[in-house]
């Protein structure tokens, strides 16, 4: 994520270091306003990490390229938000991405759930990408009116990208859901597995309330009618039932993650943890 220009073999200095020690995590204590933006940035970042796992492994080459292209957009969106929050807190984007501990990540649990590496189905990747992209699309459209000019500018770009993210994901949901008996069965399984984690996307707490009051951005619950409409329309075309709401609530946005998050961070952060400040 760093500057592109350092000459390639930067390992010259890194290789002399002993990669046995682990870099200390930064002490990050965001204000409610910063936490609001970090929830969005972290959700983009972790979703990108999971999508990128399909690089070289998607069922067809076109989808391999598609999922990693979407991941690239999401990393860019995360970079913009993390850099923005970093300017207020004295950290750079790399420190925020690679040197925060698990409890300081505030992404929705939905995006950290196992991906390809845990043997989860391609249908899971597709359904999750659809549910999340639709949410991001509704959110970015609202954030274009943010009282924070930088956030509004980031959203102005991201909303365009999220449009083709949803379109691409929705196309696949219809194709798989309304496909063969086997693809339908597996898509339904994916919906059943992932649906309980969507409730968290519409929870309300003090962070949401503060953001809404200051005009920074909408409360998550305010996104629900539009998200419901997109999901209902696409699921209807895909022949999928919209599951009923349940009582389960995941808590990633509060920093309390599933058991999968530690493994994800270990892989995402290992390089910076082992070679502090290493440049690409």
């Amino acid at each position, binding site marked *: 994520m760093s*500057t592109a220009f350092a000459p390639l073999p930067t390992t010259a200095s890194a290789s002399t270091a002993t990669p046995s020690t682990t870099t200390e995590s930064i002490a990050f204590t965001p204000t409610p306003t910063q936490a609001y933006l970090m929830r969005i940035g972290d959700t983009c970042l972790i979703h990108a990490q999971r999508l990128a796992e399909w690089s070289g492994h998607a069922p067809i080459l*076109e989808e391999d390229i598609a999922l990693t292209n979407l991941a*690239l957009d999401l990393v*860019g969106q995360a970079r*913009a938000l993390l850099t923005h929050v970093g300017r207020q807190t004295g950290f750079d984007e790399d420190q925020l991405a690679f040197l925060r501990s698990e409890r300081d990540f505030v992404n929705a649990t939905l995006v950290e759930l196992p991906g390809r590496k845990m043997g989860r189905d391609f249908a899971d990747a597709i359904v999750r990408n659809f549910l999340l992209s639709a949410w991001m*699309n509704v959110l970015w459209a609202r954030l274009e009116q943010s009282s924070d000019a930088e956030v509004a*500018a*980031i959203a102005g770009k991201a909303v365009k990208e999220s449009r083709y993210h949803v379109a691409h994901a929705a196309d696949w*949901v219809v194709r798989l859901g309304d496909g063969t008996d086997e693809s339908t069965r597996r898509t339904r399984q994916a919906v059943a597995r992932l649906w309980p984690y969507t409730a968290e996307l519409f929870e309300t707490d003090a962070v949401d309330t503060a953001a809404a009051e200051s005009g920074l951005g909408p409360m998550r619950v305010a996104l629900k009618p539009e998200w419901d409409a997109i999901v209902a329309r696409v699921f209807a075309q895909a022949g999928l039932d919209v599951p009923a709401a349940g009582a389960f609530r995941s808590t990633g946005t509060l920093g309390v993650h599933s058991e999968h998050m530690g493994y994800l961070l270990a892989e995402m952060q290992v390089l910076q943890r082992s070679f502090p400040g290493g440049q690409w």
Partner: protein
Amino acid sequence: MTSPPSGARVTRAWDVLHGVLDPEVPAISVTDLGIVRDIIDHDDVLEVVVTPTYSGCPATEVIDAAILEAVNAAGLGPARVTQRRAPAWTTDWITPEGREKLRAYGIAPPGSCASDATGGNVQPIRLMARNVACPRCGSAQTERLSAFGSTACKSLYRCIACREPFEHFKPI
């Protein structure tokens, strides 16, 4: 050393940037692409204002460096590149000349995206997303092979008339 008059410095900088090619689509320049939004002469420093194409475009840093190198090489420096996010870049900013260069290079240029702002009303897309004319033979009988291509900004098509595959610069 005497520097050229301010207006001339800015005009010359625009000319210089007209020759700085996009690293991912080396057929068109950064000014053809419409990402150079402003050039401001602060006397001591020449500021080049650039709007990024895609949030995750990996060429952003390369483009900034190429701009600085060209401006400095032309003796117009010292210079700095600043980013302006809003309003967001759109393919509608690609100049007519840039579109023609794309076509000549074998990339179908983007259509207008003014009507593409579907917002939340996203419909599932189908393989025949929109009519894109083949940049080689001009036929409108084309089909999309892949929504994504070698770079974030392009998708892959095939011409049914002349059988040639080609890239399409997606409207955004």
